[in-house]
C-alpha cells in the first residue's frame, strides 16, 4: 500500500516561482496525470517528489511520513520512488542488463547472480528479454524508454513518476511505451505522469490535474476535465492541444 500526499508545496528558482502552494493526493494504485503547457511546472513538481529538487516550503508525505524533512537520507527515499525521464537517460557505456542491475547491486548490496533471475523476469514481462545484452545505441527509442522503466522498477519502488516519457519518441514508437504504462496500471502500481498524451490520460487516469503557472488550477476525473472544464485557462489549453 502506498500513498503520496503533497501539501502546500512551494518551490522557486531564484526569483522565479515554479510551484506556488500545490496540494495533491495520490492514492494507492492510482494513476494521476499532470497536464499543462510547457513551463507550467510539471517536471519540477515531479523532481520535487523524489527529492531531486529541494522544496522551499510544504510537506511531502509518503504513507503519512514527511520525506521532505531536512536531515533524512535522500538516497534511501529515492530508492522508494522511481522516476523515468523524457530523454531515457540510459547509461550509454552499459548494456541494458547492466543499466538495470547497477542500482540494486550497489544499494541493496546484492550480487549479480542473485539478481539475475528477477531482472530477467522484468525484461520478459515487458517484452525485452532478447534485448538484455544490447547497448543503448543498439536499441530504438521505444526500447530504450522501456529499459529505463525496467531500470526504475528493479528498485521495487512504491511509487513511479513519469515525466513526458513519450515526448521524445517517434510517433510509431509511442504505443509500445504507453502499453507498458497500461500494464503497470493494471498491476496496481501507484503512478504520477506528466503527459501530453491526452487520449491516454482520458482513457486511464484516475485523476487529471491541470497545472498553470505553478498552481493546480483544476483537477478531477478525466471525464470532468476533458469534457467539461470549468476554468477558461483549462479550456484554452485543451483547445490548443486537442
Amino acid at each position: 500500500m502506498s500513498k503520496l500526499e503533497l501539501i502546500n508545496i512551494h518551490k522557486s528558482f531564484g526569483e522565479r516561482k515554479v510551484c506556488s502552494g500545490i496540494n495533491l493526493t495520490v492514492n494507492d494504485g492510482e494513476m494521476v496525470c499532470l497536464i499543462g503547457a510547457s513551463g507550467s511546472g510539471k517536471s519540477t513538481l515531479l523532481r520535487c517528489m523524489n527529492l531531486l529538487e529541494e522544496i522551499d516550503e510544504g510537506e511531502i508525505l509518503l504513507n503519512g511520513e514527511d520525506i521532505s524533512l531536512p536531515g533524512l537520507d535522500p538516497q534511501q527515499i529515492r530508492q522508494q520512488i522511481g522516476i523515468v525521464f523524457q530523454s531515457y537517460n540510459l547509461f550509454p557505456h552499459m548494456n541494458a542488463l547492466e543499466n538495470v542491475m547497477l542500482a540494486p547491486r550497489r544499494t541493496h548490496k546484492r550480487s549479480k547472480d542473485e539478481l539475475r533471475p528477477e531482472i530477467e523476469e522484468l525484461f520478459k514481462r515487458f517484452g525485452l528479454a532478447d534485448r538484455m545484452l544490447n547497448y543503448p545505441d543498439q536499441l530504438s527509442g521505444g526500447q530504450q524508454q522501456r529499459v529505463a522503466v525496467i531500470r526504475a522498477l528493479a528498485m521495487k519502488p512504491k511509487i513511479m513518476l513519469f515525466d513526458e516519457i513519450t515526448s521524445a519518441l517517434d510517433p510509431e514508437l509511442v504505443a509500445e511505451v504507453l502499453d507498458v504504462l497500461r500494464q503497470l496500471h493494471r498491476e496496481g502500481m501507484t503512478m504520477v505522469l506528466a503527459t501530453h498524451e491526452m487520449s491516454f490520460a482520458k482513457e486511464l487516469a484516475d485523476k487529471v490535474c491541470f497545472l498553470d503557472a505553478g498552481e493546480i488550477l483544476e483537477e478531477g476525473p478525466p471525464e470532468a476535465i476533458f469534457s467539461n472544464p470549468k476554468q477558461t485557462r483549462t479550456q484554452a489549453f485543451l483547445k490548443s492541444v486537442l
Partner: protein
Amino acid sequence: MLTIRQAHAKRVKQRSITIAVISTIAAIALVYFLVPLAPGWPAVKKSFFNAEIFIKTFPTLLDAFMLDVMIFLWCAPLIAILGLIIALCRDVRSPALYPLRLFGAIYTDVLRGIPVVLIVYLIGFGVPGLGLSRPWNSPYIWGSLALILTYSAYVAEIFRSGIESVHSSQRAAAESLGLSPSDTMRFVVLPQAIRRVVPANMNMFIALQKDVALLSFIGPVEVLRQAGVYKSLYANFTPYVAAAVIFLIITIPATRFADHLMSKQQRERS
C-alpha cells in the same frame, strides 16, 4: 555500367589524386634541389647531417632513450591517478569539503602556470637540498615528481572537462535510482568522462614523452643529454638530429593514433 553522375564523380576524384601526387613530388623536388643551392648548405650538412657521426652515435643514443622511456613509464600511471584525484577534488560539491575544491583549483592554476623546466630545477635541486639522504635525494625521484606534478595538473583539467561533458541528466538518472554521489561518479560519470578524454590525454602523454628530456637538466643522462655530450665531443649537431629521429619514431605513430581516436570519436558523436 556507371551513370553519368558516378562517372563524373570518378573523374573528379582521379583528377584530384593526380594533382595531389604531382604537387607533392614537385614540392619535395623543390626542397631537394633548391636547399643544396643555398650558400651555407655544405656547412649545415656537415654539422647537422653528418652520416658518419649519425651512425656512430645512434646506438648509444637509442640506449639512452630507454631511460626516457622508463621515466615515462613510471610517471604516466602516477600522473593519471593524481590527475584523476585532483579532478575529483575540483568536483566535490559538499560545502564541508570546500577546502579540497580550493586546493584543486590552486594546484592546477599554479602548476600549469610555471614552465616545466623551472619546476624540474626547483624540485630536482631544491628538495634534495633540504638535506635528504640517499637514495631519497635522487634526481630521478624528484625530477619525476616534478613531471608528475606538472602533468597531473594538465591531466586533471582534461579529466575535469570530461566530467563536465557528461550531461547532468546522467547524474540525475543515477541519483534518482538512489545511487550515492560516489557511486554515481564511479559507475556512471567517470567511465564516460574518461573514455571521452582519451585522445586529449594521449596528446598530453606524447608531450610528456618529450618533456622527460628535461630531467637531463638535473643530472640523468638520457637521450638529450647524451646527444649534448656527443655534440661537445664532436663539435657537431648531428647527434641532436639523431635524437630527434628517435623521438619521432615514437611520437609520430602515437600522434597519428591519437588523431585517429579523436576523429573516430567525433564521427561517433555526430
